[in-house]
Structure formats: structure tokens, C-alpha cells
């Protein structure tokens, strides 16, 4: 658990949004999707990334995988800066980092059969493996993820959502990567199938010593699978720490609101508890609030919050939070 596999330092991702109907040489609007994000991930560890839609979780993940070019910062893989890689080096690096997608069917090419889909990373990174050997390995991998290996010549649309997600997992694991980024892998699935897929991921992680970055907006799933959790809001990391600490004693007011929004399956408890409901909508990332981006919706916001962006500071062992007033959250909420 000690060896650091991936370190993300001050990562910025900016999108240029051309003004509607403007001449081609006018400056576009810029949308800062991820701003100065820091992450570390140890070997074999699972990092949960939570936040509401539009908080930049998926963008951060794509910047790590390399399908989006970051505007600043570094992505260090075992100390090597991936942002300095040439495109060819970057492609070769795909062998070590794979991704699982939210919509299981959309992530599979409808014109290719399952065997071809799962074999593609292998054909890309291990071209020396012959066709028969490749087919055998694909069959083995299908068995490991709970698919019948004789379904290799089937097409994606013949499978259910859960089965498609297993195909996606098989494709991600066939090159024996060290890091798998799961972008909301279970959000599109039924609850019973969610459990199957989450358990499958957990079992394969133990078997293969994988590190996972698990993106979700469902805290109950993230709490179940993660060692550590980072909470994102409007492209910034608000809180990061061990899963138990973040969910049991959340320090940031935003995390507290997120956790209180998870329903408790007991009507009496659910009625009796205090729920700080967030007012308003997520501000536009084109024009984020000054200072702390959460201040427009924060129950304990004060004038000084608008001045400077609060840095991550320790709130417990390995538990950092980007709110200087986090000790006062409890007092304010009970007073209400």
C-alpha cells in the first residue's frame, strides 16, 4: 500500500468555448473544468471520487487517462511526467491505465463482436501474441469476469447492461493494467446488478493487485469500495481523506451536505435526522465565484470566503479539507 503509483499535481483542465456566431479569430470563452487538483494513489488502493454532475470528476479522470490534454500541472506515473510524453509514448502507456465507462453499451463498438472488442487492447499492446493464443486469453478473461467464453462471436446488443459492463471490464483488464479508472461504472445499472459488478471489481482488484479510481455520485457505493475518498465541487477538490473518516466525520460543509443527502433505509431515523439541504444550483463553471467556489451555497459562508481560495489543510490524520472554518460547521448546524 505504500508505493505511490500515481500523483497528480496542480492539474488544470480548461476548455475553450467559442462564442456563438463570433468571427473565428475572436477569443473564445474559457471554462475551467478542473482547477489545481491534487491526487495521490498508492498501489492496490481504491480512491473514490465523488461530487455532483458537472464537478469535473470525469474530466479529471480523462486527463489522467490522456484523452484530454491538461492545461497545466503534472500527472506523475511512478515519478514520470505523463504530460511530457509524445503521443506514441502516451499510446504505449495505455497498457498500464485502462478505463471502464458509465454507459456499458455505448462503450462497445456495435460493429465488432465481443471477442474482437476484448482483444483490441491486446492486439494493440502485445501484437506478438498470435490469433489463437489471443482468442484463448480472451476466453479466459471472459470466464474471470463471469461470461461464457463461447460467446466471443456475439455482438454487444445481444447482451444485457450488466453483461456489457462485464465485457467492458474484461477489455480493461486483458492487458493486466496497474490502474483502472472506473467512470461511474454502475450508475446505469440495476441495483442488484450494481452489487454484482462492484463485487466483481473488488474481487479482481484483490486478485490482480489493481489500483482503482472509482468515480461516482452515489456515496453509498463509493463508501463500500474505496480506501480513500476525494470530494470535488466545481473542478476543485474540497476534501480528501480515508473513506471511513470522510463519511463518518465529514469536515467540509459540502461533504456534510452530500452525505446527508444519502437516504437512510429506515423511515424513523430518516425523519428524525437533521439534513442541511443545499440552496441554489451549481454556479456556472464559466464564471465561478471568487475565493471559495462553494461560498454561494455554504451554510457557514462569511465575507472572508470571497477573498482567496482556501488551501487544503489537515483536519485529521491524512484527512485534508479546503475550508478554514470546518471546525465551526458542527456548531452552526446544531444552533439552527
Amino acid at each position: 500500500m505504500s508505493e505511490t503509483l500515481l500523483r497528480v499535481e496542480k492539474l488544470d483542465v480548461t476548455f475553450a468555448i467559442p462564442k456563438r456566431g463570433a468571427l473565428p479569430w475572436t477569443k473564445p470563452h474559457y471554462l475551467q473544468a478542473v482547477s489545481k487538483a491534487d491526487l495521490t494513489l498508492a498501489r492496490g488502493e481504491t480512491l473514490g471520487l465523488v461530487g455532483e454532475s458537472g464537478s469535473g470528476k470525469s474530466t479529471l479522470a480523462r486527463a489522467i487517462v490522456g484523452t484530454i490534454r491538461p492545461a497545466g500541472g503534472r500527472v506523475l506515473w511512478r515519478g514520470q511526467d505523463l504530460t511530457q510524453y509524445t503521443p506514441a509514448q502516451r499510446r504505449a502507456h495505455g497498457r498500464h491505465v485502462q478505463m471502464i465507462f458509465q454507459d456499458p453499451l455505448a462503450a462497445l463498438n456495435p460493429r465488432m463482436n465481443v471477442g474482437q472488442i476484448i482483444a483490441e487492447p491486446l492486439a494493440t499492446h502485445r501484437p506478438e501474441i498470435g490469433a489463437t493464443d489471443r482468442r484463448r486469453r480472451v476466453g479466459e478473461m471472459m470466464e474471470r469476469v463471469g461470461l461464457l467464453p463461447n460467446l466471443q462471436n456475439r455482438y454487444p446488443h445481444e447482451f444485457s447492461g450488466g453483461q456489457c459492463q462485464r465485457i467492458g471490464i474484461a477489455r480493461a483488464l486483458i492487458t493486466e493494467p496497474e490502474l483502472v479508472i472506473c467512470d461511474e461504472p454502475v450508475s446505469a445499472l440495476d441495483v442488484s446488478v450494481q452489487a454484482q459488478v462492484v463485487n466483481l471489481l473488488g474481487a479482481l482488484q484483490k486478485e490482480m493487485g489493481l489500483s482503482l479510481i472509482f468515480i461516482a455520485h452515489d456515496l453509498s457505493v463509493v463508501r463500500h469500495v474505496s480506501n480513500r475518498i476525494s470530494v470535488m465541487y466545481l473542478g476543485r477538490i474540497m476534501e480528501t481523506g480515508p473513506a471511513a473518516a470522510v463519511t463518518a466525520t465529514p469536515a467540509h460543509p459540502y461533504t456534510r451536505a452530500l452525505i446527508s443527502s444519502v437516504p437512510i433505509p429506515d423511515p424513523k431515523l430518516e425523519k428524525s435526522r437533521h439534513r442541511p439541504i443545499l440552496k441554489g444550483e451549481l454556479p456556472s463553471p464559466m464564471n465561478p465565484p471568487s475565493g471559495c467556489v462553494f461560498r454561494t451555497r455554504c451554510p457557514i459562508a462569511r465575507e472572508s470566503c470571497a477573498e482567496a481560495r482556501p488551501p487544503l489543510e489537515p483536519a485529521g490524520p491524512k484527512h485534508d479539507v479546503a475550508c478554514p472554518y470546518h471546525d465551526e460547521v458542527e456548531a452552526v448546524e446544531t444552533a439552527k
Partner: protein
Amino acid sequence: MAMFATGTAAETLAQSAPMGPPRSLWADARARFFRNRAAVASLIVLGLVAAFALFGPLVARHSIETIDWAILGNVDEAGGPCFLSGPDNEIPPCSDSGHYFGTDAQARDLFARTVQGTQISLMVGVVGALIAVVVGTLYGAISGYFGGRLDNVMMRIVDILMSIPYMFVLILLLVVFGRSILMLFVGIGLISWLDMARIARGQTLSLREKEFVEAAIATGVHPFRIILRHIVPNLLGVVIVYATLLVPSMIIYESFISFLGLGVQEPLTSWGALINEGADQMRQGLWMLLVPLFFFVVSLFSFFFLGDGLRDALDPKDR
């Protein structure tokens, strides 16, 4: 939350495994196509026209340029299709002359000439469509996939080529370099792929955002491999439909050029040239117009119905 062990998952999946033979999207489309009667009928008709073009020379008893001196000078009376021969006209019986479709104004066998015209017209249509499919699809897919500045430059080139009045350029080409089939193909090849490139680019732009393409990029697949394995096969449905609709429009271009008297050179002929000659003679010998016109109209209708059928079969969503 009930958590299932992964070991038992394999067994539950075994029960819900898909049954029957594997159904690729192509197989599904084929089944849908064959349920469409008009499309199947037009496919058969086109097969017959193609067979006519291929095997017609074996049936024809004359070459395209031999003049039947017995008929020349009396074409209006004796040049009609031989199956109309009877006691009340001067048309020689089929066993004598073998002019199944009659003769043209120069008393040349119209059957042989129609066979040869069909060959040229079909070839023009198919070659034009093939150029469009190969060049247009790849050009559009590359432009759309890479996007950005490359896309801008490539699409502006298409815009510029499209803004040139092609018919004028084609006529100039034929006048300057002489009328030949090769020149005709060059001219048609120059213009046929432009629309296809735009269509392919538009489709590629939406395909590029699909997760399976992103998965391939994240895996580290080479961009050209992504274009060939992921983009192009998913474009092909639209491309095939457009290509079948492009064949008749290419035939019409060629016919128009030939009708103007440019295009293919005597003694070679094409549907357009035959219709042109027939139109001149339509008062005396209506068959000279009707025979090539029949082939022209029937084939174009068949191509359009075929294109409709393919569109319904290949993308059932956008009907």
C-alpha cells in the same frame, strides 16, 4: 443490499446467455432488407439489367457498328423491332435480321448498341459511386476525426471544389482533352466524392464523441486504426445508402453530357447518347427512343427503391 458472490454470477449469466446464431448488425439489416418487397424487386431488376449488359454481347447477332445495308434507306419502314414483324409491315422476321430492338437511324443493330450503352452507363455510375465511397468516406472520416485546423483546411478545400460549376468544367475538360471515357471518369471522379466527404465528416463528428471511440483512444489504439476499425464501419450504413442514390445521379450526369453530344464517342454509346439519337428520330421511329429510355427509367427507379430499402434496413432509427 444483497451481494451476490462472483462465482455464482457465471451460472446466472449462463442462463441468460443469448440464444440462436450470433446476430451482427449487418445480419439484422439483411433480414430487414429482404422483408422490403419493393427493394428486393428492384434488386432483381438491377440484376437483370446487369445480366443484360454482361451477357447481351453473346446474344447480339451484329456488332455495334455494322450497318445493315438491306435496311439503310428504309429505316422508318423496315428498322423496327423484329418481333413486330408481320404481313402488314416491311420489318424482316427475327430469324432473318436478328434486330431484336430494331435498328437506329444509320441501320445499326439497336440491341447491340443498347447492350453497349448499358455497359457504359452502369460503369460510369458504379465507378462514380466507388470513388465517392472510397475517397469521400476516408477524406470525411479523417477530417472529422482529427478536427481542429486540419478539419477546417480539408473542408474549405471541399467548399472550393463545390463552388466550381462542375458541368462547365466537365465540358471544358472534354473539349480540351478530347472526348474519351477516361476523361469522363476523371470528371465524374472529381465531383462525386465531395458530398460524400461532407456526409462522412458530419457522421464522424458525432461518432467521435461516442464512448467506444474514447475507449479505443484511452487504450492507445493508433488514430488511423481507430478510423478504419471504429469510425468507418459505423459510417458504412449511411455511406452505402448514399452511394446507391449516387449511382443514378452519376448516370444522369453522364447522360446529360452525352445528350449534349459530348461524353462517349461514336461508335461507342451510352444511354444518354442513345436517348439523344432516339429523340431526333421520334417521329419516324419511336422505338429508337423508347428502348433506351425503358432501360434508363427502369434502372433509375430500381436504384432509388434499392436506396430506400437499404436506408430503412441499415438505420431503422432515422426513418
